[in-house]
């Protein structure tokens, strides 16, 4: 009985869904601006602010770097090392893209710590990221291996195996985006349950959960997403 009261008391407060902020009509369709859009906008503004500040710091760069210049250089150097280590001689072309999505996904995952609903806990965001990776993979495949090489890869063991290969290609962006989405969503749901059901007892200890679900899990998933994207693209560029 006591437990039942404890667990049902705050059931109305559990809230991890995406909410509509306002809607408008576009070509006869109702389109919603949701909390995800707002959170993506906030994350973007933070990144843009950092970029402008970093640009200013680098323009007035001094021989003995200040704190901010040091941080900006460290971030760029770290990303360059990571990308160079995985992609080797293909890395100069993809540095911008991988660095951008790395910082965006990392800040999106961490934004749960600042009370936002993480944008990556919406399938629309992660599917877009997955589709960008998919486009890059196949654009580079056609660019480096030409149509002949792609057809040869399609009919890898035997020609009638092509449908299975196509399913394998399509599964790449889906599994990439679902992995990121489900990880961030599970953290969001878990924290929403803690705050909704145990509201009276959630005083300081949820901080530990935030460290695990937002910081640790978010950073690992960012790394995994970028690592897999880099591996797939490098694989598409390689010609024997």
């Amino acid at each position, binding site marked *: 009985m006591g437990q039942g009261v404890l667990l049902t008391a705050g059931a109305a407060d559990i809230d991890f*869904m995406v909410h509509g902020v306002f809607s408008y009509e576009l070509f006869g369709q109702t389109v919603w601006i949701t909390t995800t859009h707002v959170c993506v906008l906030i994350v973007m503004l933070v990144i843009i602010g950092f970029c402008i500040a970093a640009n200013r710091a680098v323009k007035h760069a001094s021989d003995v770097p200040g704190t901010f210049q040091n941080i900006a250089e460290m971030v760029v150097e770290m990303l360059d090392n990571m990308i160079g280590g995985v992609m080797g001689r293909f890395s100069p072309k993809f540095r911008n893209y991988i660095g951008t999505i790395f910082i965006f996904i990392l800040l999106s995952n961490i934004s749960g710590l600042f009370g936002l609903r993480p944008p990556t806990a919406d399938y629309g965001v992660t599917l877009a990221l997955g589709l960008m990776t998919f486009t890059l993979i196949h654009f580079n495949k056609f660019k480096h291996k030409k149509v002949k090489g792609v057809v040869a890869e399609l009919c890898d063991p035997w020609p009638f195996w092509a449908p299975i290969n196509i399913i394998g290609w399509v599964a790449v962006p889906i*599994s990439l985006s*679902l*992995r990121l989405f*489900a*990880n961030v*969503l*599970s953290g969001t*749901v878990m924290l929403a349950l803690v705050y909704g059901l145990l509201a009276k007892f959630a005083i300081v200890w949820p901080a530990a959960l935030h460290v695990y679900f937002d910081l640790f899990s978010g950073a*690992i*998933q960012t*790394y*995994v997403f970028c*690592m*897999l994207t880099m591996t797939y693209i490098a694989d598409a560029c390689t010609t024997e």
Partner: protein
Amino acid sequence: MGEFNTNFILGCSAIGAGLAVIAGIGPGVGQGIAAGHAAAAVGRNPGAKSDVTSTMLLGQAVAETTGLYGLLIAMLLLFVKPLVP
């Protein structure tokens, strides 16, 4: 009739959601095996600890995916309710 049907489908959806998260067994075993082998590797070659740890975490994060698919099915059954007419 309609109300009974809806409630019946909701109850079955809840059971299905419970069955779906049993998928968590697989990644649990897999991650445990990965961590065990990583511990053995560090024991043999303590100098490579950071490399082994990062490789282990990458592999574990990828292995976690199947369990998360189960979680996803459970969430769909409970909150999106695709089976309720």
